[in-house]
C-alpha cells in the first residue's frame, strides 16, 4: 500500500510539473509552483536529516572505538559548536565570519592546492595507466593550453598564445564539450522519463 501511494505521488507530481511547463493553464501553473515550493522545503528538511546521519555515523565510530575515532570526536564538537553559535549569533555575525573565513575557507583552499599536486602526478602517470593515442592527445592539448595561458617573462608565445590556444579552446574543446553535454542532456531526459513511468523508484529503494 505504501508503495502504491509513494509511486502515485511521484508520478502525479512529475506529470503536473512537466505539463505545467508546456501548457500555461492557470491551475496547473499554481500547482506546479506549489509542488516546487514543497520540494524546496523538503530539501531543507533533508539537510537536517543528513546532518543527523553524519552525527550518528561519527558517534558510532567513537562508541566502537574505531581507528581514527578521535577525528570523529573533533567533527562532532565542531559541528555542535558551529550549530549553537549559528543559532544564537545568526549568520553574518563577526564570530561566524571568523569561523568561515579563518577555518573553513583555508581548509578547503588547502585541499584545492593538494588537488593541483595530485593532478600533476596523475597526468604524469596517465601514459603508464592508459598508454594510448587519446592519452597523448589529452596531455599534448593540456601542454599547449598551459603554454598559451601561462605568463612568461618575454610575453606571449607567438602562434601558440594568439592562434593555437584560442582555436583549441574555442573551437575543438567547445564543440567536444557541447557534444558531451548534448549526450548528457538526452540521457537526463530518458532518466527522468523512467522515473515518471515508475521504472526507477529510488523512493522505494528500487
Amino acid at each position, binding site marked *: 500500500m505504501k508503495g502504491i501511494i509513494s509511486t502515485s505521488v511521484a508520478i502525479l507530481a512529475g506529470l503536473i510539473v512537466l505539463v505545467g511547463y*508546456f501548457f500555461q493553464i492557470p491551475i496547473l501553473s499554481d500547482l506546479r509552483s506549489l509542488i516546487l515550493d514543497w520540494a524546496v522545503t523538503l530539501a531543507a528538511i533533508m539537510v537536517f*536529516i543528513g546532518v543527523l546521519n553524519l552525527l550518528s555515523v561519527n558517534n*558510532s565510530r567513537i562508541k566502537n572505538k574505531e581507528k581514527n575515532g578521535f577525528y570523529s570526536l573533533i567533527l562532532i564538537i565542531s559541528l555542535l559548536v558551529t550549530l549553537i553559535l549559528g543559532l544564537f549569533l545568526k549568520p553574518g555575525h563577526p564570530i561566524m565570519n571568523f569561523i568561515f573565513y579563518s577555518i573553513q575557507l583555508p581548509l*578547503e583552499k588547502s585541499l584545492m592546492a593538494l588537488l593541483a599536486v595530485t*593532478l600533476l602526478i596523475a597526468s604524469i602517470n*596517465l601514459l603508464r595507466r592508459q598508454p594510448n593515442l587519446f592519452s597523448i592527445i589529452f596531455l599534448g592539448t593540456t601542454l599547449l593550453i598551459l603554454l598559451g595561458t601561462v605568463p612568461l617573462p618575454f610575453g606571449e608565445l607567438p602562434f601558440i598564445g594568439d592562434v593555437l590556444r584560442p582555436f583549441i579552446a574555442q573551437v575543438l574543446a567547445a564543440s567536444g564539450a557541447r557534444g558531451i553535454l548534448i*549526450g548528457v542532456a538526452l540521457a537526463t531526459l*530518458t532518466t527522468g*522519463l523512467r522515473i515518471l513511468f515508475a521504472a526507477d523508484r529510488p523512493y522505494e529503494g528500487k
Partner: protein
Amino acid sequence: MNWSVLIAFVLVAGSAGLLLGFAILKRKSSPSFREIPAFTRLHKAIGRAVEDGSRLHVSLGRGNLASPQGAAGLAGLSALRRLADLTSTSDRTPIATSGEPSLAVLSQDVMQASFQEATGGGHFDASGARLTGLTPFSYVSGALPILRDEHITANILIGSFGVEAGLLADAAERQNSFLLAASDNLPGQAVLYASAQEPLIGEELYAVSEYINHTPMHAASLSVQDILRWVLIISILLGALLKLVGLL
C-alpha cells in the same frame, strides 16, 4: 506555446512513446550493446570483492535532486541498487557516500530494500549509507578515510562530481583498489580522465545500471538515446547546410 517549447514538447512526448514501445519490444529479446571494457573489469572487481569478503564503495556525488544534476544522482542510485543486489551474497554490504542529503537518505532506502530482499527482512545497518560533507571538499575529505579504513577493494563513483573527485581517484590508486568513475560535470570528467583507472565519458554514466544488470526499461532508454542522437546529428547537419545555402 512558442517554437522552443513546442520542440521540447515533441521531444519529450516522442521519447516517452519510444521508451514505452522499446520497453515492450525488449521484454522478449535480449539487448546487445557495444562492449565497454570498464564494465567487464567492474564485474571482475565485484566478483573479487564478494569472494574475499571486502567491501564496495559507491560514491553518489553531490547532485541535488531538485537541480539538473539530480539525474546523475538518480543514475547513481539505480546503479547502487544493482550493485547492492550483486553483492548480496557477500558478508559485508557496500558503503554508499554522498555529498547531498537527499541522496544520502535515498541511498539508505535503496540499500535497505536490497538487503531485506536478500535476507528476508534481516536487521540493516544504516551506517552503510553516509553523508560525508555538504561542500565539495568536505564531502571528499569525509569519504577519504572510508577508502583507507573500511577494507574497500572497489570504488564506483557515479554522480555529479567536480574537480574534487581527483582526490578520491588518487586515494583509490594509493590503496590499490579498483576505481570506475563517471560524472556529468565537464571539469569533473576531465579530472577523472586523467586520474581514474576506469573513467566513463559523457552519457556512459547513465548506462551503468543497464550494463550491470539488464532490464527492459533501461535497455529501451539506451535505444531511445541512440535514436535521439541520430535525429540531432541529422538536424545539426541539415541546419548547417540550410545556413550555408542561405535559407536559414
